[in-house]
């Protein structure tokens, strides 16, 4: 997701557009949020993104105490399906759990499920559901947006539906009501089966059963989250009390990661609390199976979580756990106190004054100060964030790939990394960050070695490419262009200024580009980017985005025509060759069954992206948690969305944090 909270978009976009935007962002936010899973997609060869991981000797662990930290924004809601806030996910992940979880490197492990398996894969696509579809009409909102007029959650739309419908036209859709019929007839893309642990209790002492899982997934219907779930989920059903069958629309190598880890709630919530109301501000306590319970919440001030004394987990329940038997069966701190402090500098001040034990999201220079201090420890982890510069590929002369690559060769990534981010962010030599290396490449380092030359800073090579482009298209140098970004991120503005300066340099007496910088307030900028009018303005757009463990998001979000006017194909990029390559890498029986083939296909995708250069990837993020010396064992999760929950307890990496005051 974009660096700033996507829910902020609601003020400038219609709800429908917002939903679409969030759905587009979702590849990322979903992956970051709770453990997404992985079936055959376990992330083979995954490398631990945690730099200099600290480990804890179980004998030294001290129990008790309150771990204090701070987040940058008030949670929009505790009701997970209605939340579009990355910050709120930090709180959600303390309370809720899913059938599978993930390690810091993105490998998937059964969690509430004792085990899961991929039962079946079939070569099915949207057109195969036509026989089960119903006919509904299109309608129009007050602001002129056309939508399919049904209250039921749409699962699949017919490929024969009109591309530009008008109100009154008819659409063929498969809704949740008919999806079960298709499944019953054996029409589905993939079938996963989960066996739940017996005896797991929710915070309200209710026992977890398969119907709870089904009802919890049903809670997503027509929610803010529905777009990013029902683009893949076909149907879910319970088989007895402890077996869950999950069906996917078409063979999708990322399906289990996207769908397996969604939170599960007790029937007290699913039966009685309307969607959006599972929030203390609505008089309801959020309930899940998580290792903490919400003890106190003061809106705009703090949230206090108490350890779940009845936590169900035991390391002996998991075959995959290979740690010492003394490793705790849950977090050891008694409470987690999360204050809401919007300013990063205030959070840094709070850490120095001892008000909090951990903070994150600090500027590079402040992080460097902390790294050099003996009183604190910085815990860096390769992150899921990246910056990218998107070219107006539909506007002359930027339609020429060589010209775009010429501009790309003038982006001084190493200098950006070293001078602006003091090494905390890494040059994006390839579109795929190290975080997703396990699923998106066969050998990440070798791939970087092969492809790095596309993204190295070489003015001479840029001049050659620009001259070649001039031979193919009618262009006069210097090309005047505006480079835009959001103004509220100083380091990003400096990055853009450096790129503009670099692109505007004279090379062998010729100035190829004349770049001026224009900055806009974040929401204003994003609303313009997400409008359908941006693509033909001929401007370069520079912004940040966050992906996840699924490599697909790093390609699709910024290239797919499906993401046009959503996040984050602002320039109407539509490269048929790349579209097909992306599809071949994620969808289909072959890649769903063969992770190695999938990795190979993604490597082709990355090279194609670099060749076409519709986007120039700038840097890959590093997420850094900073703790004082009272905190032992803290390691930073690659996404802020689970930065607290992961640190407190995650046996997949034998991760646990305790306090030694």
């Amino acid at each position, binding site marked *: 997701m974009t660096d700033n909270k996507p829910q902020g978009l609601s003020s400038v976009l219609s709800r429908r557009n917002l939903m679409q935007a969030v759905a587009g962002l979702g590849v990322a936010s979903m992956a970051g949020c709770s453990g997404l899973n992985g079936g055959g997609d376990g992330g083979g060869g995954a490398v631990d993104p945690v730099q200099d991981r600290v480990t804890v000797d179980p004998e030294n662990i001290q129990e008790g105490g309150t771990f204090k930290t701070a987040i940058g924004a008030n949670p929009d809601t505790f009701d997970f399906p209605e939340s579009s806030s990355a910050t709120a996910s930090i709180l959600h992940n303390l309370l809720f759990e899913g059938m599978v979880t993930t390690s810091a490197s993105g490998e998937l492990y059964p969690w509430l499920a004792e085990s899961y398996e991929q039962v079946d894969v079939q070569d099915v696509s949207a057109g195969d559901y036509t026989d089960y579809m119903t006919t509904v009409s299109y309608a129009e909102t007050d602001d002129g947006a056309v939508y399919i007029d049904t209250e039921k959650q749409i699962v699949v739309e017919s490929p024969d539906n009109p591309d530009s419908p008008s109100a009154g036209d008819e659409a063929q859709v498969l809704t949740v009501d008919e999806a079960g019929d298709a499944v019953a007839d054996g029409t589905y893309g993939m079938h996963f089966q989960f066996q739940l642990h017996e005896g797991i209790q929710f915070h309200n002492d209710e026992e977890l059963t398969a119907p709870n899982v089904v009802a919890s997934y049903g809670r997503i219907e027509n929610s803010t989250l529905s777009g990013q779930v029902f683009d893949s989920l076909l149907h879910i059903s319970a088989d007895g009390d402890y077996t869950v069958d999950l069906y996917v629309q078409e063979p999708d190598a990322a399906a289990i990661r996207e769908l397996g880890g969604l939170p599960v709630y007790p029937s007290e919530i699913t039966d009685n609390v309307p969607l959006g109301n599972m929030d203390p501000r609505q008089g309801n306590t959020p309930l899940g199976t998580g290792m903490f319970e919400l003890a106190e919440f003061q809106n705009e001030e703090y949230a206090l979580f108490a350890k779940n004394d009845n936590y169900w987990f035991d390391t002996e329940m998991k075959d995959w756990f290979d740690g010492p038997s003394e490793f705790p069966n849950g977090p050891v701190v008694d409470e987690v106190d999360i204050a809401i402090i919007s300013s990063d*500098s205030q959070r840094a*001040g709070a850490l120095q004054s001892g008000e909090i034990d951990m903070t994150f999201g600090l500027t590079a220079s*402040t992080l460097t100060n902390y790294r050099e201090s003996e009183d604190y420890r910085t815990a860096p982890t390769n992150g899921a964030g990246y910056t990218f510069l998107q070219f107006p590929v539909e506007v002359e002369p930027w339609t020429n790939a060589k010209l775009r690559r010429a501009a790309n060769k003038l982006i001084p990534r190493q200098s950006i990394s070293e*001078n602006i981010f003091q090494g905390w962010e890494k040059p994006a030599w390839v579109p795929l960050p190290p975080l997703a290396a396990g699923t998106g490449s066969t050998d990440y380092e070798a791939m970087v070695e092969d492809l790095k030359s596309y993204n190295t800073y070489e003015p001479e090579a840029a001049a050659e490419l620009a001259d070649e482009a001039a031979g193919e298209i009618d262009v006069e140098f210097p090309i005047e262009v505006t480079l835009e970004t959001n103004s509220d991120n*100083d380091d990003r503005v400096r990055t853009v200024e450096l790129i503009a300066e670099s692109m505007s340099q004279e090379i062998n007496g010729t100035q190829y580009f004349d770049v001026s910088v224009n900055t806009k307030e974040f929401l204003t900028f994003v609303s313009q980017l997400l409008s359908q009018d941006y693509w033909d303005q001929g401007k370069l757009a520079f912004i940040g985005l966050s992906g996840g463990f699924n490599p697909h998001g790093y390609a699709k979000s910024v290239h797919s025509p499906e993401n046009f006017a959503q996040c984050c194909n602002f320039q109407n990029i539509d490269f048929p060759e790349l579209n097909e390559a992306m599809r071949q890498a994620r969808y289909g029986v072959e890649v769903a069954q063969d992770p190695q083939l999938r990795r190979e296909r993604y490597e082709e995708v990355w090279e194609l992206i670099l060749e076409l250069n519709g986007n120039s990837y700038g840097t890959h993020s590093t997420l850094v948690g900073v703790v004082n010396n009272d905190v032992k064992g803290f390691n930073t999760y690659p996404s802020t969305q689970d930065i607290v929950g992961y640190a407190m307890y995650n046996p997949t990496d034998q991760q646990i944090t305790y306090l030694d005051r």
Partner: protein
Amino acid sequence: MSTERGRIRVTGFDTDRVTERDDLSDWSEATTGGTESRWRRALRRFRHNRVAMLGVYVVAAMALLSFFARPVTIAGITVQPFSIAPYDPSTILYLEPGSTVGRYDPPTLAHPMGTDASGRDLFSRVLVGGRLSISIGFVVVGITATFGLAYGAVAGYYGGWVDEILMRFVDVIFAFPGLVLALVIVALLGGGYWPLVIAFSVPGWAGYARLIRGEILSVKENEYVLAAQALGARDRSVIFRHIVPNAMAPLIVQASLSIGTVVIGVAALGFLGLGFEPGTPEWGTMLDQTRETLIQGPGGSIPWWATVFPGGAIFLFVMAMNMIGDGVNDALDAQEVGNVGQGGGG
């Protein structure tokens, strides 16, 4: 009894005593070269005000340094070829091959004011920054004072319902806090030089209008105004040839003091990130770009040069303008002018 009937003779008045007595004052036609105009007198008084003249020298020096900091090119023609600043203010020095310049390098001989967060030479940026900061102050005051003068003069001269309507509109302008109104305008129009000029001009003229109206209400009662009207002079002529020149003094004082205020206002908006694009060499914007350095992590040292020099430039200019304003006030002070001895007075 006198034989010269019908003639009156005044006695007891010895004209010789009058013509032959010592002069009562030093004045004589030979000792004066004519009446000194109030403007010339004000200028003379201003010149003798050392503090005010120091302000003039400072402002003049800063303006000249800014103008000659980098070459000025208009429509491809270089109209000012000099270059006092050693670097282009937007050049990111660490991008140069082999450069050893970094971010926030402290002052050295090569970079007397150090470098900023992007590795740009602060000395060059402070010099060039004056072009925007200083000129915008003069432009805004020129526009606001001119418009306010005309507006207030019309209101004051015609009076009645014209005055009522015009001054109620002035009250509306005054109802908005000036800086907040400027902030709203910049938010609507976007940043940049002319949007900022508009942003400060829209609320800025009202003060001049109210001031000049008050002056004109008193000046227009003078006999020379009535005489001009009796002779058939047009209103425009009466206002701008007879009334306004005699009501200008407080406006000039106000204008000279306002330049500094505008510069501070522009810097304030720049500091809030609302004035110019972030990399623009404008003093307030430069301060904004270094705001993050004020809070450091443990053991971090604040790069003082990044804030002291742009902030010092703002301080120096505004202080100098205020010194000039006070000097103008002293030179044109109507109360004091009234106390000056008038030639021929008895």
